[in-house]
């Protein structure tokens, strides 16, 4: 999976971690465009002792209590020499946790070698956990898709279809029935580290919908906070399409369709749309059927078994 990961700048980590990470830049503020290439953190203990074989320079480097104690045990010149070697590895940035004091000589050295140095008051353990999550989210493979994302009874459904087919109207109907909107029309997808596809709104248009005839509406203002959801795993893709011949090919629901999203196959249903067809109801039922199949119940299979049993001389009495 790592081949698909994208890099992010130190600046981007700072802005996304503004509230959670409590980071402050003490050196190298002109080089915040340096890129973090791996979504994890390295504690360069061995490096500080001068051992750089198989060192991981693409990661955020962190000086925690142990590293700080080691540096403190060195003479001033040894300390600078050790850090200078670390900076020479072209690392994206160096973080000091627990509010450790960064000496002016270190700041000068970092400025000379163009390495951003950041400090935080957080404990190392907590900082590593939070930063790893932020980095993984930012660096996960992602893309924007044309589709409306809703949560129906806990099932994440991405409604897609050509413009004007009625995606937003269907979502509006679902919201009215108590389900939640994640995003309307344009949805941001990312693949998390466990291979799940997560859908989220695009920040700028978040929780707004465009309904033909009404224009743009703000969903939580009208329907309340229960009507929205920050993000949700995509369990099911529901493709709305005009009623047509293709609808005949899967009348029993024996065919299983999938759609590939960011390299992951996600279950898919095609829903024919025509005047008078209650798409909202069908979507709701599709979500429930998905849930039921997840529990091992498959209606068409069970019906088939009954029919075959009868055809082969069995009887239908008993547990059925």
């Amino acid at each position, binding site marked *: 999976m790592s081949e698909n990961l994208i890099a992010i700048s130190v600046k981007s980590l700072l802005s996304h971690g503004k509230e959670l990470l409590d980071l402050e830049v003490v050196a190298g503020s002109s080089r915040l465009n340096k890129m973090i290439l791996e979504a994890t953190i390295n504690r360069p203990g061995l490096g500080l002792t001068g051992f750089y074989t198989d060192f991981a320079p693409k990661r955020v480097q962190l000086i925690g209590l142990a590293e700080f104690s080691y540096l403190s045990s060195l003479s001033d010149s040894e300390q600078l020499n050790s850090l200078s070697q670390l900076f020479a590895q072209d690392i994206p940035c160096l973080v000091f946790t627990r509010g450790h004091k960064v000496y002016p000589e270190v700041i000068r050295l970092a400025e000379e070698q163009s390495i951003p140095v950041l400090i935080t008051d957080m404990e190392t353990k907590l900082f590593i956990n939070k930063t790893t999550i932020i980095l993984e989210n930012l660096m996960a493979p992602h893309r*924007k898709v*044309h589709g409306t994302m809703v949560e129906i009874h806990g099932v994440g459904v991405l409604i897609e279809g050509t413009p004007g087919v009625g995606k937003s109207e269907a979502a509006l109907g679902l919201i009215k029935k108590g389900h939640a909107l994640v995003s*309307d*029309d344009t949805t941001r997808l990312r693949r998390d580290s466990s291979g799940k596809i997560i859908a989220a709104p695009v920040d*700028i*248009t978040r929780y*707004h*919908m*465009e309904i033909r005839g009404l224009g743009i509406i703000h969903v939580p203002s009208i329907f309340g906070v229960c009507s929205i959801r920050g993000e949700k795993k995509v369990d099911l893709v529901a493709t709305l399409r005009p009623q047509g011949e293709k609808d005949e090919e899967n009348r029993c629901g024996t065919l299983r369709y999938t759609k590939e999203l960011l390299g992951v196959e996600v279950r898919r249903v095609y829903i024919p749309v025509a005047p008078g067809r209650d798409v909202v109801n069908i979507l709701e039922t599709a979500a429930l059927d998905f849930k039921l199949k997840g529990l091992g119940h498959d209606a068409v299979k069970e019906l088939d078994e009954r029919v075959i049993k009868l055809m082969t001389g069995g009887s239908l009495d008993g547990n059925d």
Partner: protein
Amino acid sequence: MEKKLEIKNQYGIHARPAALIVGIASRCDGEVWVVKNDDDAISAKSIMGLITLEASVGTVLTFTIDDSVENAEQILDELEELLHIRKFDED
């Protein structure tokens, strides 16, 4: 076929300009895609999609319509007029 068009009005693609683009794109017999930089393609028939482009003044957008679509050239010409000459009737 495609056309690269620059945003020339002061406030970029906000709600009203998005609606004007959708007005033209919706008359296209096929799909009209818009791309900013190398980002993902957005349907030009979607107001919400267009707003998510965050296209400010100076941004260059690439509009693409499949060559097989009959009125492709006419739609692209109308979009060019809207962005470059009318500037969304704003300035």
